[in-house]
């Protein structure tokens, strides 16, 4: 997928410019893109490093477990097919909380473990279970409280308030999550009939 899109951008972009555009500009674009890329990495570097340090402290303090205990009863309502004390629910909670805190690299192993334990309770091994779909809808529309990369790039482009998009992101995410979970619920019920 990513290979096709990457190729599409380059091939279509170059052909279109050669036939309808400015070729000397194209040379500049190609040669400058690496410099732009390095610039972007350098813009991201300070905030990512700083935030990784802070999040490591959060991880070491056991905050994730603490927040998980609060969130778990709420999450269990979304997964009627999972038992309240099931391992899967614990992993789902950890994954969602880690994602919310922006601990992407910590979230993925929890997510994979959650899928694994839901697969154990799954009757058709090649088909996604209800719980898996609900989990993935929640995961992919899930909130990150502090979107560090966005804030870093806004800061480097001299935004007056780099952090002002936190609230708008959270509000938009809540809409997306509710819409996704509702559609999932409707389609699950329709199947049961």
């Amino acid at each position, binding site marked *: 997928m*990513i290979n096709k*899109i*990457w190729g599409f*951008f380059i091939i279509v972009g*170059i052909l*279109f*410019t050669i036939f309808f*555009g400015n070729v000397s500009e*194209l040379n500049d*674009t*190609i040669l400058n*893109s*690496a410099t732009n*890329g*390095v610039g972007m990495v350098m813009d*991201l*570097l300070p905030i*990512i490093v*700083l935030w990784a*340090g*802070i999040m*490591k*402290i*959060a*991880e*070491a303090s056991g*905050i994730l477990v603490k927040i998980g205990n609060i969130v778990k009863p709420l999450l269990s309502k979304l997964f009627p097919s999972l038992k309240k004390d099931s391992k899967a629910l614990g992993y789902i909670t950890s994954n969602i909380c880690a994602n919310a805190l922006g601990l992407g*690299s910590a979230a*993925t192993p929890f*997510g994979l473990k959650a*899928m694994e334990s839901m*697969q154990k309770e799954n009757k058709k091994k*090649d*088909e*996604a279970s209800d719980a898996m*779909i609900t989990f*993935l*809808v929640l*995961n*992919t*529309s*899930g909130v990150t409280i*502090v*979107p560090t990369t966005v804030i870093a*790039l806004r800061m480097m*482009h001299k*935004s*007056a*308030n780099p*952090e*002002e*998009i936190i*609230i*708008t*992101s959270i509000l*938009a*995410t809540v809409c997306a*999550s509710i819409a*996704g979970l509702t*559609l999932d619920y409707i389609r699950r019920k329709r199947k049961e009939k």
Partner: protein
Amino acid sequence: MSNLSKLIIPLFVLFVVFYAFRKKVMIYDTFLEGAKEGLITVFHIFPSIIAMVFAINIFLNSHLLETMFSVISPLLEKINLPLNILPMAFVRPISGTASLAIMNDIFTNFGPDSFVGRLASTIQGCTDTTIYVLALYFGSIKINKTRHALSTGLFADLIGIIASFIVVSLIF
């Protein structure tokens, strides 16, 4: 609203450091350890950022989109919606780096505090790489019948994008 946004990072840092301090975590050493991991993360994403900026610059600078959508672009301009948001919304579920590169381009051309700059920031912050995550998670347990997972996930993304537009219009 924007005052609330201003408080989130300071309160978050305060809470984390205070909580860890009380739990007697070696906070300074732990910070260094995490920062080192952050450095490695940046090192790992370096090549993919170069690759994506390269491809996306070629595509956006070809002005193909402007030509293709020249009929409807006055309409889009009327509702304050520059064309570059379209490829961003399109690649967002597939590649976080690609959409980040387009967002960066939008910041360069329109500024982060423009309407489209704020919209791009909100879209990047509120949705995830749905297609990539689904492929990774279902692939790990060898599930090929994914039922309504993909369409529901993409529907949520679409609602997220529409909601971003509405929320940014209302708040700023």
